[in-house]
């Protein structure tokens, strides 16, 4: 198993390198940072001088090597736009995105799993069908429309919930959290719902499909045949077996949630990494874009590893090997 984890680690390094390369090389093609960095009256010579200073005239691979090397040393460079160190910028935006993603994920799980179980156990019921149709419609509306709709319904018309931002924050070391204030929680509701809806549907459908599958397996039939209480059959035997494949997908989706939060963050002016990324695109802040990409990829890799470890924890077939 250690070998397996090691192997994944090595693969992860390759993934990271590939992403770094992509991040770097591809954004070389998007726009010209110099024209964004300078004002209208900056002379052509001044622009050239700046270009030289920033090393933008160096050969491609020199720039890439510098980029990767610096990053390995924890130096993520500076934003073209604000001149801030990018590492710090992203780090300060990280909590917002992670908290939003986590809350969205939690919502999707605590609603999605029960809903999936319910619709699996009563596939033909009216409630099940309604849930299925409702969620289907939910995911068929573009996220940004849903977000704005929620804002105008709950923020403007009803005035129940904040329409933008994270509300009050509390600093715990460098981590700025909005999960410790009432306002922060209220701020989470709409964006997390918007972000979590897709997840929720996905989780629900996955749980439903898996659960229906598991309910047909031999060991469940055997459990029924020996009169194990239904509650235990459904929620102990079937559900736990259902969750094994579900966990992988959910794990992978968490990465997706982080990446997908771009849209939600932009709609709710949520000060996370996605918003930062969108702004960087708008201002052709290439270093920020590149680092964002690498950070996102890093998350994916970490989450993949965590999912593997989680597997190990819940599936005794992987954990306990010796036979008796």
């Amino acid at each position, binding site marked *: 198993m250690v070998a397996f984890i090691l192997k994944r680690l090595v693969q992860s390094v390759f993934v990271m390198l590939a992403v770094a390369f992509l991040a770097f090389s591809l954004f070389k093609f998007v726009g010209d940072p110099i024209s964004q960095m300078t004002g209208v009256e900056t002379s052509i010579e001044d622009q050239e001088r700046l270009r030289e200073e920033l090393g933008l005239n160096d050969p491609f691979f020199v720039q890439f090597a510098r980029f990767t090397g610096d990053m390995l040393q924890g130096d993520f460079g500076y934003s073209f736009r604000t001149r801030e160190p990018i590492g710090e910028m992203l780090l300060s935006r990280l909590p917002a995105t992670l908290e939003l993603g986590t809350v969205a994920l939690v919502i999707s799980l605590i609603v999605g799993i029960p809903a999936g179980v319910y619709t699996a156990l009563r596939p033909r019921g009216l409630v099940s069908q309604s849930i299925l149709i409702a969620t*289907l419609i939910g995911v068929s509306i*573009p996220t940004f429309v849903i977000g*704005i709709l929620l804002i*105008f319904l709950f923020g403007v018309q009803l005035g129940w919930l904040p329409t933008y931002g994270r509300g009050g924050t509390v600093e715990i070391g460098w981590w700025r959290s909005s999960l410790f204030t009432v306002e922060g929680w209220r701020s989470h509701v709409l964006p997390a719902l918007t972000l979590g809806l897709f997840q929720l549907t996905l989780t629900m459908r996955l749980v439903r*499909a898996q659960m229906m599958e598991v309910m047909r397996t031999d060991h469940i039939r055997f459990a029924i045949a020996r009169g194990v209480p239904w509650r235990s059959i459904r929620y102990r035997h079937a559900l736990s077996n259902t969750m094994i494949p579900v966990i992988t997908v959910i794990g992978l989706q968490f990465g997706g949630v982080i990446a997908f939060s*771009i849209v939600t963050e932009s709609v709710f002016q949520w000060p996370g990494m996605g918003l930062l990324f969108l702004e960087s695109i708008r201002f052709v802040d290439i270093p920020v874009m590149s680092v964002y*990409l690498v950070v996102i990829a890093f998350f994916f890799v970490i989450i993949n590893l965590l999912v593997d470890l989680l597997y190990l924890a819940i599936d005794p077939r992987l954990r306990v090997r010796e036979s008796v």
Partner: protein
Amino acid sequence: MLGRLMQSEAVWLFSRSPAAILAAIAAVTIVLGALFAPWIAPTDPYDLSSFSLIDGLLPPVWEDGGDPRFLLGTDDQGRDMFSSILYGARLSLAIAAMAMAIALVLGVGLGLAAGYYGGRFDAVVMRIADVQLALPAILTALLIDGISRGILPRDMHDDLRLGVITVAIALSLWVNFARTARASVFVERNKDYVQAAIMMGQHPLRIMARHILPNILGPLLVIATVDLASAILLEATLSFLGVGLPADSPSLGTLIRIGMQYLLSGEWWILWIPTLFLVVLVVAINLLGDFLRDLFNPSLR
């Protein structure tokens, strides 16, 4: 024969599923409307001389101030919404279908080969898939846009957007196909009919294409349907984020993006009518996907 049986099975199941029937009617209606847009639409929204700013922002006919010439009202340019929507649906469907097709070919090809050969090739493909998954679609779109601008001659840029968005969507969808194909191939590869073909010394390409592929089409078809819906939504989202199609040849997504500006201003039809179309279309496709899923009943993820 199998096909025929499947069909009859399908037809039977279909006739018993009101959701599928409704979905099919809705989808077919919209698709036909899109296909025959040039003949159905009262005006050609691409023809700049066919509309006038003077007719701008007219409400649908049933509202006060509606103009009988414009069934669903007009947008800020005086363009007939009904025509725009038909043409927009046409474009959206074309992009989605193209993207889906590219993703299908790419994903299934790589997935098949990865599953068939396994080992290092498989690892490489799956790591590429990981990388792809790590890239949000908007990033992919921007990257493609950037690269194509870097590579292709200047005067092609105008015609580029359609291609860029299609390829970007395709790239964010192929992983699904690849993973499904690969997983299915892992199952099929160890089946005796494949072993027999290998043993006989058939060419790997032939084994993949003639033997394995037909047997994994079911789950792929389901993915394709679901991805078609995703592609339509993705296109809309990309439009919202500013990497979509231009407003003078709008897709449904672009129409919604434009309409978003009128969310509050009272010209509700500019936003909600295209949105309604989009949602009906996507729901219908998703419902059909569900139906197919039930039909093939694989344990899909």
